[in-house]
């Protein structure tokens, strides 16, 4: 295909789109922080205290897990691109595995203390998925309405 057939990209529009999409991770974390209290309140109202406590614990574990995942990926990308302030490879792998250990410990503690809240805990672990789905809907809205 010749170069003349390719559509022209407006640099200002491309910069606006890049700025918009670069804020996706921050928006996802904000959405998680907003969604968690709302969903915990809904779980408390619908299912009672113990499932709500389990759900809140699941949300907290999922939030910390997502934050650490972001840090691990940042360290990995730093190393892959040869950035000056890259973390050590052992530290990256240790943190990546430590996430699973801490999640398992949290789940074991909740299961030991209150088995009734286990379903809430499992549901709370899906908080990032809900936040990513909300972000996807928002990006679709921005693409359709605002043309970003």
């Amino acid at each position, binding site marked *: 295909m010749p170069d003349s057939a390719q559509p022209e990209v407006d640099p200002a529009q491309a910069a606006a789109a*890049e700025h918009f*999409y*670069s804020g*996706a*991770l921050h928006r996802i974390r904000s959405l998680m922080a907003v969604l968690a209290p709302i969903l915990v309140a809904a779980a408390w109202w619908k299912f009672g205290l113990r499932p709500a406590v389990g759900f809140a614990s699941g949300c907290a574990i999922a939030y910390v897990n*997502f934050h650490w*995942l*972001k840090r691990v*990926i*940042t360290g*990995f*990308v730093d190393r*892959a*691109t*040869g950035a000056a302030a890259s973390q050590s490879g052992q530290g990256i792998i240790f943190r990546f595995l430590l996430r699973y250990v801490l999640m398992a410990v949290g789940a074991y503690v909740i299961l030991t203390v209150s088995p009734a809240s*286990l*379903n809430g805990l*499992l*549901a709370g*672990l*899906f908080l*990032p*998925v809900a936040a*990513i789905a909300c972000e996807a809907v928002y990006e679709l809205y921005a693409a359709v309405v605002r043309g970003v």
Partner: protein
Amino acid sequence: MGKLSKLFMVLSVLSFAVPAFAQGGAESGVNWVAIAAGFSMAFASGICALAQGKATASAAESLARNPAARPGIQLALILGLALIESLALYTLVIIFAKVK
């Protein structure tokens, strides 16, 4: 072609194994649900690990080819890994729901 023949071989072995499951009867005392749940979690974990490895390898290769594309690749990698992990969690939830 070799992969296909291996796949069909595994499927045929599994087909032969189906009548064997029926021979135990209800009095066998074996908790097949728990065994199936264990295999399900193992399959889900293994396939999710493979998917995470492939996603990470592709991201590393893309970063090595074009380091300027770092923000987009990093975002896609984080979201991809989070969603792949959630797939293993789906299996875990189903197992907890079915195995009491």
